[in-house]
């Protein structure tokens, strides 16, 4: 998927002028955030916090041994009968999948939700090769029909109202009009059931790979993940190289913390462990299982100060907690991952300059770190990315000029004092109200209120206060 992150400001502005979008996003994220709190702290706040630290340590331990665990996972996956393929970038992921499709004479593909497949633009690649692809997660199915990208990593269609989905089903699928959501879902179930039964290849993502057993792990609610891994002849799983965990114990911990953080469920409906293709004597299951280990920019992050972002388990809690996401929705972020995790991942996995607006799309309120089940310090990385942007010269020239002026002024008390006086006097010339015509700086003031300077500066107040005290002492 080509990143549109460079258009963040314009896209965010459009979203800010779309109250129905904001209502839908706010209602959904508020609900998810509330449920997350209840589930994470179901056994007390101390217990929940201890789980977060335990889960964070599990992810960090895995990252500290990433190359060894990947080799171990590969060996055990292979011993279990799976074929392991490695893909350096998006093109190689697509090439692998097309190769597999050709080898197994695949014409129809059903997919369960995979963010990696969105990263690499797999659906387009398959369609170009003349292979029919159908998304089967209800949310992904809806946005595929609408020709839109997902706007949330857990609930991809969070931005659409029930009425919008109804209209889409009526227009595109000929559904008899109804406002009843269960009826709409049943209608989609019928359509998709036929697709599952006639597809040759199922494509899934992967939430975890357990190195010690070579187990591919999926977490789903609808059952489409089970369908695409059980019914088609071939199953292909696309998994980021960072998703490996060392032991079953670490998996058992993380696979429970994930749904609690994502949707507030104690367990997802289907917590699925796959140990290879169908075995001798088994009545169903795929004849072949391929696991594609996807780098696509991850190994370049590994040795940097951003390595901790590789610990992310994609629960979306930071997205649900983010005031910026609540205001803009997910599409404004322009790539696969929205919200705070996207504001860090998109610049790192795509292009820093192109995504230069994203590290600034944060109030640095810190909520994203607070709710992260693996305690990733997203605010710290957002600040570091801002630093990198300055270092790389990706900030506007006026920003640089302003910062240089600030630097000069603050190094001299005399200059600082005169600048402060000038600001106090100068603000009287500005019109009242929040929109301030700052010329080229207007971009800053358009979304912020310019604070009024106090009538007396701190320096003047301090001097006056000391004089007052002197008088008291003398009396």
């Amino acid at each position: 998927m080509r990143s549109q992150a460079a258009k963040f400001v314009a896209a965010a502005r459009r979203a800010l002028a779309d109250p129905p979008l904001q209502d839908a996003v706010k209602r959904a994220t508020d609900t998810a955030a509330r449920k997350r709190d209840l589930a994470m702290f179901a056994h007390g706040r101390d217990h929940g916090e201890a789980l977060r630290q335990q889960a964070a340590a599990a992810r960090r331990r895995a990252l500290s041994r990433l190359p060894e665990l990947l080799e171990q996972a590969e060996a055990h996956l292979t011993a279990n009968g799976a074929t392991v393929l490695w893909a350096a970038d998006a093109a190689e992921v697509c090439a692998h999948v097309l190769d597999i499709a050709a080898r197994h004479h695949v014409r129809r593909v059903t997919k369960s939700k995979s963010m990696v497949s969105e990263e690499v633009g797999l659906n387009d690649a398959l369609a170009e090769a003349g292979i029919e692809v159908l998304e089967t997660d209800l949310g992904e199915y809806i946005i595929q029909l609408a020709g839109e990208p997902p706007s949330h990593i857990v609930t991809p269609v969070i931005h659409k109202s029930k009425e919008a989905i109804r209209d889409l089903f009526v227009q595109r699928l000929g559904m008899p009009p109804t406002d009843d959501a269960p009826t709409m879902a049943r209608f989609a179930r019928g359509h998709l059931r036929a697709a599952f039964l006639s597809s040759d290849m199922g494509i899934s993502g992967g939430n975890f790979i357990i190195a010690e057993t070579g187990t591919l792990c999926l977490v789903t609610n609808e059952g489409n993940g089970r369908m695409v891994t059980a019914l088609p002849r071939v199953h292909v799983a696309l998994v980021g190289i960072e998703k490996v965990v060392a032991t079953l114990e670490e998996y058992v911990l993380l696979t429970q913390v994930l749904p609690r953080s994502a949707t507030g469920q104690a367990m997802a409906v289907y917590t699925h462990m796959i140990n290879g293709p169908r075995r001798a004597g088994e009545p169903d299951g795929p004849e072949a299982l391929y696991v594609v280990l996807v780098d696509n920019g991850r190994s370049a992050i590994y040795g940097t100060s951003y390595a901790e972002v590789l610990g992310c388990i994609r629960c979306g809690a930071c997205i649900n907690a983010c005031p910026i996401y609540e205001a803009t929705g997910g599409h404004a972020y322009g790539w696969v991952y929205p919200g705070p995790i996207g504001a860090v991942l998109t610049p790192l996995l795509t292009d820093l300059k192109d995504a230069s607006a994203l590290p600034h799309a944060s109030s640095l309120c810190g909520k994203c770190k607070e709710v992260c089940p693996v305690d990733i310090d997203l605010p710290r990385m957002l600040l570091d990315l801002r630093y990198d942007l300055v270092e790389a010269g990706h900030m506007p020239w006026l920003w640089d000029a302003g910062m240089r002026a600030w630097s000069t002024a603050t190094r001299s008390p005399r200059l600082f004092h005169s600048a402060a006086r000038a600001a106090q006097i100068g603000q009287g010339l500005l019109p009242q109200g929040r929109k301030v015509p700052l010329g080229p700086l207007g971009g800053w003031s358009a979304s912020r209120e310019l604070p009024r300077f106090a009538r007396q500066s701190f320096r003047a107040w301090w001097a006056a206060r000391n004089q007052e005290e002197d008088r008291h002492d003398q009396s």
Partner: protein
Amino acid sequence: MTSRETILARLRAARRPFADTPPPGDYLPVAPVDDERPAALVEHFAARAEALNCTVYRCTDERAALAAILDVIGADRQVLCWDFAHIPLPGLGAALARAGVAVAPPSDPSVRVGITGADAALAATGSLVIASGPGKPRQVSLLPLVHVAVVRADQIVPHLEAWLATVRARGLDAFQAASSTVIISGPSRTADIAMELILGMHGPGELHIVVLEDTSA
């Protein structure tokens, strides 16, 4: 160099992140259970499963269990079913035959009810652990709208961590021998349409769990 070599070489050449992370200590269970005595586990399991919209039948004899299952089947003439050897109800085959209910091939998508056993159950989350294998098709718990699972009370363990302890005790080979192990917690669901909870999205919309309690205890 292949991509495999390139990726691994790059990871190996990098400064190791989190090299100072301590080794794992004792894991705190994610969902601890206060009372782990057998009777309390059944109570806990039933309450959690019902909270997930499952219907739980606690049966102290085989007759009651068979009656509950036949009631769910209703007027249907066909069900999907595991091999009877994997369902802890010896009289099930005969009871279905007497009621004129045939077992359809597991891939028949038109059948409404699927009957399985379970490999274990988790009290803390009301979950069933179901492994695939000969005589245990995965489709039986997946394709039909209604899933009936039969579990013995002594298969209920406190939580996922306790289940893992049983996996370790049996050895990892036994775990890896099943190509698919799925932990099922309630009926299939979605909230993708305006966050409204809808059951039975792709998998079963009804989950009936028959718990066989030991009357001799």
